[in-house]
Structure formats: structure tokens, C-alpha cells
């Protein structure tokens, strides 16, 4: 019904028309704009903010050289004060505009980081880099929540994981570092949860879905790199938790390539298990080298227990809820490898067991794909077997004729199975 029709039937009075017209118009524009700005305007505004921020920083850093220490400090505060004013303006007047919120969130990080780096220059701080970036992250965290800015939270995640991952000096060297790292990670998780709840189809949310599991994976690998016993436990249980999250109803509705948790969990679990099918890596790792009393004194022991207990809890929950054949096969696989490490086997038997496990896993996948007419699943199983064969061929000295024959027969099998499944799908259609 139009506004003029409403007038005809006396449903609204003429003096209301002016206001109601404008609201009708606004609604139309808002829905259109909402779709548009998501991609281009947002990206350009962020780019603009970054450029403006870095421009301000370079201008002030050139002129600062002539002034005294106190004056330099005062001038360094100017970008931060501008950032506060913009933040207040955004919060109180432009609260609905996502563009404003995102750009101001980025600008605050820039202004604070500039100020801190200038102070560290003034006091000749040399390798305080990790402390400075962590200070920057902690200080800007409240703004991430107030502005609800997902770009800011991505920058936060980057800063938090950067000093621990890439700068050689600060690989989680002490218990204190690990506690700080986990607290900082935990602090951003509520924001991630809110993002998941609010926006279902957002670019930043998709980036979050990839970045958060990656930071967790790098954290787990760094933590357990010294001890292979911990490595198996911690990594396998973490990746199983990932696959569990990927199987949840929230992620299952997405396409498989958007389901980051499932992909990361699946690939990492398989690569850890594949590592133990290789003779060299098992002998290098010395799984039973460390004693139990040593393990307890280490800090990663507690993290391992935490993740492992979560994994077992989830597994038991699934076991009660679902049928045995409906549970994700990767859970069985990782549980089996963990059990194998608990029973102290000699390395040869251990390798044979992991080989059999992967073979069984891929055979079940192939069979599953063939029955359910799923080409991706079937080929995934075939690729697993191929990798297994490659590892075996690299490990042992085998006659080149036999190598050639295995590759030839494998290629034939792949072609024939794919041909049959396509034929079957067409027949069913």
C-alpha cells in the first residue's frame, strides 16, 4: 500500500505523511546500502584510515627531532587524542555506521602503537618488542569491545600471536609467557562469540573463522615442540576438538570450503598420523624418552590435560548421543593413535599399527563415498592411500620396477573407480 492510498482510506493524517515518507525512503536506501558497503566502501575506508594514520605518524616523527624530550612526549600524544575524539564522535553520534566503527578501531591501534614506539625510542629500549606489542594489545582491547570492530579484533589477534610466533627471541620461553598468551587469547574469544551470533554472512567473520584456529594450532605446536609425547596428545586432541566444532550445526550448514575448523582439523590430524607412518620421524622423536616425573613439572602438561579431557568429554557425549557408525572417523583415528602411544610399543610395531590405521581409515572413506555417490570423499580416501604408498616407498629401498608397477596399478585403480562412480551417478539420475 502506497502513502497516497493510505491517505485515501484515512488511515493516516496528512501531517504524518512527511515523516512517514522519509522513513519509507530511508528503509529502502538502508537495505540497498547495507549490501553495497559491505565490500567496497568498507575496504576503502579502512585503507584510507591506515594511510592517514601512517601519514600523520611520519609527519610528526620528522618534526619531533628538534624538540626536547618532554615536548616530544606531548606531541606524540596528539594522534591518540584525535583518536579518542573520533571514537567519542562515533560512539555518541555515528553509532549505527559500521564504516566509522571499523576505521576508528584501526586508528586507535595505530595511534597507540605510534605513541608506544616513540616512547621506546626515547628511552632506548632495545628488545622490549614483545612487551611493547602486548601492552598495545591489552590497552586497546576495551576499544575492540566498545566499538564492536572486527578489523580491530583481527589486528589484536595478529599482535598477540606475532611476538610469540615469528620473532625468534620470544618463543614461549617461560611459564609466564604461556599464561599471558592464553589469557590474551581467552580475552578475545567473547568478541568472536558475539560476532558468530550476530552476523552470519560477513567477510570479517569468515577471516576470524580461519585466523583463530590457526593461532591455536601455532600455539599448540610451539608449546609441545620440546616433547613428542606431549606433541601427540596435545595436537591430536586439539584437532579432534576442531573437527567436532566443524561438525556442529552452526558450521555444517556452510559449504565444506567455508568450514575452516573441519578442514584444519582434518588435515592436521592426518598429517600428525602420517608423520608416524614414516620410519625416520618415529626414530627421531623418541616418544618414550621422558619420564613421568619430568612431565608433571612442565607447564604444557596442564594444557595437554585440559585439551585431552575436553576431547574425551566430547567423544563420550557423541558416543551416547549418536550411533557408533555416525561418529566422525577422525575421532576414532586420533583416539587410537593416543592409545598406541600409551602402550609402550617398539617403534617398528608402532609404525605398522599407524599404517594399518590410515589404510583402514581411507578404505572406509572410499567405501563410504562409493555408497553415497560422493566423488570428493572417495578421491580423498584414494589420496590418503597414495600418500601412504609414497611414504613407504621413500622409507624402504624398493626395486624401481616394483615402484613403477605400484604407481601404474594405483593410477588404473583411480581411473576405474572414478569411472564407475560417475556411471553409477548417471544411472541413478
Amino acid at each position, binding site marked *: 500500500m502506497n502513502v497516497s492510498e493510505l491517505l485515501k482510506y484515512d488511515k493516516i493524517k496528512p501531517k504524518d505523511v512527511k515523516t512517514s515518507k522519509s522513513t519509507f525512503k530511508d528503509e529502502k536506501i538502508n537495505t540497498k546500502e547495507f549490501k553495497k558497503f559491505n565490500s567496497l566502501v568498507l575496504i576503502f575506508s579502512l585503507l584510507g584510515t591506515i594511510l592517514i594514520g601512517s601519514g600523520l605518524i611520519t609527519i610528526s616523527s620528522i618534526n619531533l627531532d628538534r624538540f626536547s624530550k618532554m615536548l616530544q612526549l606531548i606531541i606524540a600524544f596528539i594522534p591518540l587524542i584525535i583518536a579518542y575524539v573520533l571514537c567519542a564522535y562515533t*560512539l555518541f553520534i555515528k553509532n549505527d555506521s559500521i564504516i566509522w566503527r571499523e576505521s576508528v578501531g584501526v586508528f586507535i591501534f595505530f595511534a597507540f602503537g605510534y605513541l608506544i614506539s616513540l616512547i621506546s625510542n626515547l628511552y*632506548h629500549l632495545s628488545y622490549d618488542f614483545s612487551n611493547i606489542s602486548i601492552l598495545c594489545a591489552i590497552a586497546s582491547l576495551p576499544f575492540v569491545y566498545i566499538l564492536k570492530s572486527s578489523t580491530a579484533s583481527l589486528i589484536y589477534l595478529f599482535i598477540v600471536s606475532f611476538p610469540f610466533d615469528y620473532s625468534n627471541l*620470544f618463543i614461549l620461553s617461560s611459564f609466564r609467557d604461556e599464561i599471558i598468551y592464553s589469557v590474551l587469547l581467552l580475552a578475545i574469544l567473547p568478541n568472536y562469540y558475539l560476532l558468530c551470533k550476530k552476523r552470519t554472512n560477513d567477510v570479517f567473520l569468515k577471516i576470524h573463522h580461519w585466523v583463530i584456529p590457526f593461532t591455536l594450532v601455532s600455539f599448540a605446536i610451539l608449546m609441545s615442540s620440546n616433547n613428542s609425547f606431549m606433541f601427540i596428545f596435545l595436537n591430536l586432541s586439539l584437532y579432534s576438538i576442531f573437527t567436532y566444532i566443524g561438525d556442529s550445526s552452526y558450521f555444517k550448514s556452510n559449504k565444506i570450503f567455508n568450514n575452516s575448523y573441519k578442514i584444519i582439523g582434518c588435515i592436521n590430524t592426518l598429517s600428525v598420523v602420517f608423520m608416524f607412518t614414516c620410519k625416520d620421524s618415529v626414530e627421531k622423536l623418541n616418544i618414550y624418552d621422558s619420564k613421568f616425573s619430568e612431565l608433571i613439572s612442565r607447564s604444557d602438561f596442564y594444557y595437554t590435560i585440559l585439551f585431552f579431557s575436553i576431547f574425551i568429554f566430547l567423544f563420550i557425549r557423541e558416543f551416547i548421543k549418536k550411533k557408533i557408525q555416525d561418529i566422525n572417523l577422525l575421532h576414532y583415528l586420533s583416539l587410537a593413535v593416543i592409545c598406541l602411544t600409551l602402550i609402550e610399543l617398539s617403534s617398528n610395531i608402532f609404525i605398522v599399527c599407524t599404517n594399518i590405521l590410515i589404510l583402514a581409515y581411507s578404505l572406509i572413506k572410499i567405501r563410504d563415498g562409493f555408497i553415497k555417490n560422493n566423488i570428493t570423499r572417495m578421491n580423498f580416501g584414494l589420496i590418503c592411500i597414495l600418500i601412504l604408498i609414497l611414504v613407504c616407498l621413500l622409507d624402504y629401498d624398493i626395486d624401481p620396477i616394483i615402484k613403477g608397477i605400484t604407481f601404474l596399478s594405483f593410477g588404473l585403480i583411480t581411473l576405474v573407480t572414478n569411472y564407475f562412480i560417475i556411471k553409477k551417478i548417471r544411472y541413478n539420475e
Partner: protein
Amino acid sequence: MNKKILIRFSFVFAVLFQLLLLFSFIYDKEDIINNGSEFKFMITKFKPSNLDGRNYICLNLKEEFISDEKIQIFDNLFVSIKENSDGFASITSISKERPVDTSDYVKAISFHSRYGTTNYMLPFNIFYFKEVYADEIKSIYKKCIKDSSKKVYALVSIKNGKGLLKDLFIDDVSIMDMIEK
């Protein structure tokens, strides 16, 4: 209305939180400079360089390596410091535990290991200077290379395991004074 008050309150809280962290950071550094105990560290060589628009001198302090098999890379170390008869600082002991008997110690990190000896880095081996002084500092550096009798040392103040570089001296004259002449 209630939500608006909440937003205002949280904004003020965030700003105050950020400023509080900043001022505590600055206060910490000022405290070390004003109330810390001062030491003179001999410097074997120094070289001005430029990275990312930051001009700095990298200082090689004396005795920056240890041969102890228990110490691994990225361990936190505690370096105890004492003033010797020449008036310069000398390192008395290096341990993984915090020393109890003296208050003059610095935290350091071991970062490079080869042939059983481990290098460690003290937290005050970089001296930043201003862009305008780059040419003068280069000429001073060239003079120092020619004349090996010149004594170069860094003035460092230390408190609670933290050390800050205050100034760089060449033959008891501050490098900044030399430039301004």
C-alpha cells in the same frame, strides 16, 4: 537511555585504562633512570645504522657469551653486575635463578648457541639518536675507528632487573655534548 549511559561509561573506562597503562609504562622507565644504580659498561665496538627510519647505534658490550651446557637458547638469564677497580661494570655471575644476595642484576635472554658457548643479549645494547645528528655521529664513529686509545662506554642505570641506557660516552664526554659543540 540506559544503554547510552553504559556506552559513555565504558568509553571513559577504556580511555582511562589505556592512559593508566601508558603512564605506568612511562613512570616505570623514569623510575629506573632516576632511582636506579648507575654503571659504566665498556664497549668494544659500535656502529651507527639505519633501519625503518630509525637511526641507532648497535653496541657490542664486553663479555657477551658464556660456556655453560645447562643454558639453552631462549632461556631467561639473570646477570649479576659489580663495579670493578677501574670504575667499570663487570659481570660476576650468570644464573637461571633470580640472585638473592645483590640487587644489581639484569634480566637477559640467551639467543644464539654454537660450539658449547651461548650468546646472550643485555637489554641495553641499542642507542637511538635523532635524524639530524646522523652525519655528526658518523664522523665521530670514523674518528673512533682510527684512534683505538679512546675509551667508549655506556652509562646504564639498573633497578629490579631492568636496565636502561642513559647516555653514550667517548673519553668521558657525552656523545650528545660532542655533537652540540
